[in-house]
């Protein structure tokens, strides 16, 4: 249980100064902004202390001395300084706040741009959620540190410093008493803040577990009910909520104790001031206004101390965030364009895999000594069991990954001598689970060729067999597809991604057919679209449909990273081996679907 909770919270126990420096470097382009908010906040906190000092003088020189003129004179200064301070307040909120937003923006941008360059292997190993947290919450925490954190601690330090100065000016002996207490206060405050932060994080963890529990029990409610599991579910959930209760209750009462504790300690200082100040007043060593000023300084001392403690406690976590963020930024892409790569190369031509070896993980070979020669315009169907290596062949073809050894050539040249862009912009890919971006259908199709006109988009859709269903939608091509396209069915998404591939006018076409069944009409449209797309192009299809397989010039039965059987449909069928078994099974399955909708449940 505990292991799971601290899972992501691994941070170096001491504050890493190199990381801290790197964080500060983020503000480099905005040195003036930082200087601006630091200056204004210093002035604000200086003025705060000065106001208390002015109050003292109002009391001593105006009230006790019964001098209305001095009273008005000092009040006038007081009043003008209030307006001046308001200006500074405007300044620091604006400067620090906007700079915070700006640094957040910069960090997100930097990470996003960097992510675009990283290789597919990175995304295969790194969960999307992890990356998301870096770009969203870690960037927040780090920018918070260099703006508000820096500002608050400056304010706090300045406040303590200026208040101490005025106290020394008023009466240095009393000031010493107060200053003796400050370190104690800061120490206590930091201990508190750290404890509070730990509890808060813990309760946040429980909170996300509670959300997950709700999520699961609601999505699976039918199973829960069918299995009469209500009681057990409730008991499990109650355990979680009571853990949540204890940690968040603890966090809450620790927070509630924090300020009173600081207040009570500072009350000791007030008591001492009363005792010694009262005695000193007798000899005229301190005035009434002076005592009042001391009381005021001590009373408000808890705010800067609170801020300092908060920033200090959060510092460690912000640095941990920064370390994770920098680790993302420091990752280098695995597939890189070589220096002097050729960006202009005719991709239409023969493709060869020569003794290609590949593995995603070091000790688990996926392809071994794989050799294949494909002539321009040929259509290759890849069939075989899951995990046999079909997708890997496609991944290597697209150069999402590069062979560990062996060579892949396109039109006679080792493809690592070309830029990735040169290859990928000439390949049209349709994935098994088609991925769409939120936006309109038109936007999604145009993804294939950004400068395409509306007519081009429509033409491509006609060729892909998508036009009919799109025009039947209320808003036609301007229909919103929803987040990740979830307003559309899988078949429809596939048609759109076909149109997208058609629009890109690729030299090589790669398709991973969907296994899930779509309705017959959509299915026949997809088949038509594929046919149009494959005409005259070299194509690789990870095939599941018989009609696709039959069309292939060559069928490769891939198993265990090797080509086990190869040939035309009738050749392979005649062997009555692996392909034969696969084919007959699929044949029965498809005909059942075709003949009787009764079978589709």
């Amino acid at each position, binding site marked *: 249980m505990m292991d799971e909770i601290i899972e992501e919270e691994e941070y170096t126990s001491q504050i890493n100064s190199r990381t801290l420096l790197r964080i500060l470097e983020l503000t480099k382009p905005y040195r003036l902004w930082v200087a601006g908010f630091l200056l204004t906040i210093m002035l604000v906190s200086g003025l705060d202390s000065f106001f208390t000092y002015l109050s003292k003088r*109002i009391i001593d020189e105006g009230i006790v001395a019964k001098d209305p003129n001095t009273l*008005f004179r000092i*009040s006038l200064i007081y*009043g003008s300084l*209030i307006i001046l301070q*308001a*200006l500074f*307040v*405007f300044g620091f*909120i604006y400067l620090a706040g906007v700079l915070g*937003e700006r640094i957040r923006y910069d960090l*997100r*941008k930097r990470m*996003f741009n960097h992510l675009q360059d990283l290789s*597919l292997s990175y995304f295969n190993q790194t969960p*999307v*959620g992890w*990356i998301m947290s870096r*770009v*969203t919450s870690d960037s927040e925490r780090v920018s918070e540190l260099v703006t508000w954190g820096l500002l608050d601690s400056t304010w706090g330090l300045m406040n303590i410093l200026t208040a101490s100065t005025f106290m020394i000016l008023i009466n240095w002996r009393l000031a010493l008493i107060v200053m003796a207490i400050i370190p104690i206060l800061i120490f206590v405050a930091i201990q508190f803040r750290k404890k509070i932060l730990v509890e808060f994080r813990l309760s946040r963890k429980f909170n996300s577990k509670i959300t997950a529990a*709700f999520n699961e*029990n*609601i999505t*699976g409610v039918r*199973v829960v009910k069918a*299995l*009469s599991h209500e009681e*057990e*579910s409730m008991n499990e959930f109650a355990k979680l909520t009571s853990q*949540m*209760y204890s940690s968040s*209750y603890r966090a809450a*009462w620790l927070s*509630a*104790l924090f300020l009173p504790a600081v*207040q*009570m300690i*500072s009350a000791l200082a007030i008591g*001492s001031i009363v*005792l010694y100040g*009262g*005695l000193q007043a*007798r000899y005229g060593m301190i005035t009434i206004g002076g005592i*009042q000023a001391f*009381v005021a300084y001590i009373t408000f001392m808890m705010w800067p101390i609170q801020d300092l403690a908060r920033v200090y406690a959060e510092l460690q976590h912000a640095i941990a965030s920064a370390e994770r963020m920098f680790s993302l930024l420091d990752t280098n892409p695995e597939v890189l364009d070589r220096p002097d790569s050729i960006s202009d190369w005719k991709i239409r031509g023969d493709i060869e895999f020569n003794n290609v070896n590949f593995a995603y993980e070091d000790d688990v070979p996926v392809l071994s000594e794989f050799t294949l020669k494909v002539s321009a315009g040929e259509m290759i169907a890849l069939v075989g069991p899951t995990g046999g290596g079909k997708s890997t062949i496609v991944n290597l073809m697209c150069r999402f990954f590069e062979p560990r050894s062996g060579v892949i050539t396109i039109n006679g040249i080792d493809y690592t001598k070309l830029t990735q*862009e040169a290859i*990928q912009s000439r390949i049209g*890919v349709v994935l098994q689970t088609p991925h*769409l971006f*939120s936006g309109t259908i038109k936007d999604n199709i145009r993804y294939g060729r950004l400068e395409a006109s509306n007519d081009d988009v429509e033409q491509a859709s006609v060729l892909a067999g998508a036009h009919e269903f799109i025009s039947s939608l209320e808003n036609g091509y301007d229909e919103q597809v929803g*987040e990740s396209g979830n307003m559309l069915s899988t078949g429809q998404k596939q048609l759109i991604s076909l149109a997208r591939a058609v629009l*890109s006018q690729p030299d090589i076409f*790669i398709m991973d057919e969907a296994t899930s069944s779509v309705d017959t009409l959509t299915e026949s449209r997809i088949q038509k679209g594929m046919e149009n797309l494959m005409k005259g192009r070299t194509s690789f299809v990870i095939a599941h449909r018989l009609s696709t397989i039959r069309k292939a010039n060559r069928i490769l039965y891939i198993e265990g990273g090797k080509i086990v059987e190869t040939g035309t449909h*009738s*050749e392979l069928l*005649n062997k009555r081996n692996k392909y*034969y078994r696969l084919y007959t099974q699929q044949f029965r399955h498809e*005909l*059942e679907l075709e003949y009787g909708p*009764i079978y589709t449940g």
Partner: protein
Amino acid sequence: MEFDVKSTISKNRLLGLWRLLSGYKSIYSAAVISLGIAALSKTGTYMLLRYFTDQVLLDPSTRSQNSNLINQLFIIALGFVALAIMEGGFTYTSGRLAARTAEGIALRLRNYVFDHIQRLTFSYHDKTQTGELIQRSTSDIDALRRFYADQAIGVGRIGLLFIINLIALLNLNTRLGLISILVVPFIILTSISFFRKVTKAYEAYQEQDAVVSTTLQENLTGVRVVKAFARQEYEREKFEKDNWEKFLRGRRLLMMHSTFWPLSDILCGAQMLGGFIFAAMMVINQTISVGTYLAYAGLVVWLIWPMRNLGRLIVQTSTGLVSYDRVMEIVKEEREDLITGNSILSGPVRGEFIFDKVCFEYERGVPVLENITFHCPSGAVVAIMGLTGSGKSSLINLIPRFYEYTSGKIFLDGIELKNYPRAFLRRQIGIVEQEPFLFSRSLRENIIYGAGRQVTEEEIISAAKAAAIHETILNLPNNYQARIGEKGVTLSGGQKQRIAIARALIKDPRILILDDATSSVDTQTESDIQAALNILMQGRTSFVIAHRVQSVMNADLIIVLDKGRIEQIGKHNDLIQQPGVYRSIYDIQTLIEIELEKEIASAELMHKSIETE
């Protein structure tokens, strides 16, 4: 559940929130009283300061007597410390009590709503969106927690500070007191209107934040598409647009803050300074003492500055009220009755079913099942066939009383189904769906899910073996401890189904409901599943939704449904003789085999002709 949240529902939301405090009313009141005492102590501190100034510092008589002075100073110093301890102690007590109330209520609500949701009817869940339910159970309950923890108590704190300090001020000097709060109504109004605006701006900022996240997420999940079309540049520009918009909205928000706070600073500052001058003049005119001035100067701070935050609390309170409505909308729904029923049986049922003219409709006037009549002896296998929407699932859903039939009667062991308590009935029934829902916990836990008793490892393994899933599990990392879901393993439809079969075997029910597999699993797996199902069905009354003739041939009774009516009923050998749906399905199956033969023969022929050429 010892506390029924439903009983607290009220149309008046504040009354409802008050009732929700049930059990915590005294604690919460104590929290408010503690706040009052803390505020009083603070006021006391300034009164003590007044006494200290007037009676000690400025009184010539005390000044002359040294020992008396030290004594007095000591007592006053102690007084300051004591008052601070009181203030601190009661502030803490109040915070702790409020936290206990808020956390306690949140805990109670979470548990109640969780249990409530899982006990609501199937029809409720049919029409309710999952996301919406989760939102209400989590964020809205949290908003209610904050209502008790921060907002209600915060408004109380500011109110009490204001009232107590105002009374003290009025006591010091009525005119002075009244003058000091001139600006307060104005501050409250501006602060409310500011926080309304800022809340809206903040929502806009949050919305854009969601847009940025979506763009990022789609880019990450669609990374293959991005790379395949080499669209990195385009993606960068798209993200840049959203990212920049977020920056702009954040800047707007900050512009609002950076105007409000200094302006209100000036307003509050002017009020304070005006009061100081006025009070100072009163001292000079000898209307009030110097000590009174000092007390005034201290008190007035607590009267004015907290008012700026009142607007924030009030605006937030209104969101708490909205959350109250949203949570209560769930709470007021009726639960499914699981325990009442006339027929209390101790042992398992035999499993004999009689359907007598059963009709069912989800919506009034739209019949889904009509006049379903058949008899199923204990231990028999009933196969149900029909097109999508013919009523197969609806018929099966009546058996565990997921839904109630609208007319006619169903008898189980001679007793009408409505007389069995739902919980009892469901314990007698095992269900294996085509693509069963598995929970994101270990495989082991999924297999024993719903067993309702201690299960030994041997039992689990033998069930898994019988369900033909044991080998697959052994090949997974962590075997039976492998977690299902995001961070764990993903199973195929067929594998999930076999887990569900193992689950049903452990449950060992008298009645079975099965959904036959159609997904394209390979031949070997298919026959494995079929064998597992056969083991499962042995000796149990089974209802099977069937998709192919092969799997119903041995059924004791075959029911062909069409538009909610029984189209054909009987055994395979009878039905095959009659003209009708069943026979045509059967014919198609034979036809497929013939076509396959033809196809292979033609391929061979073609191959041979190529060879001979």
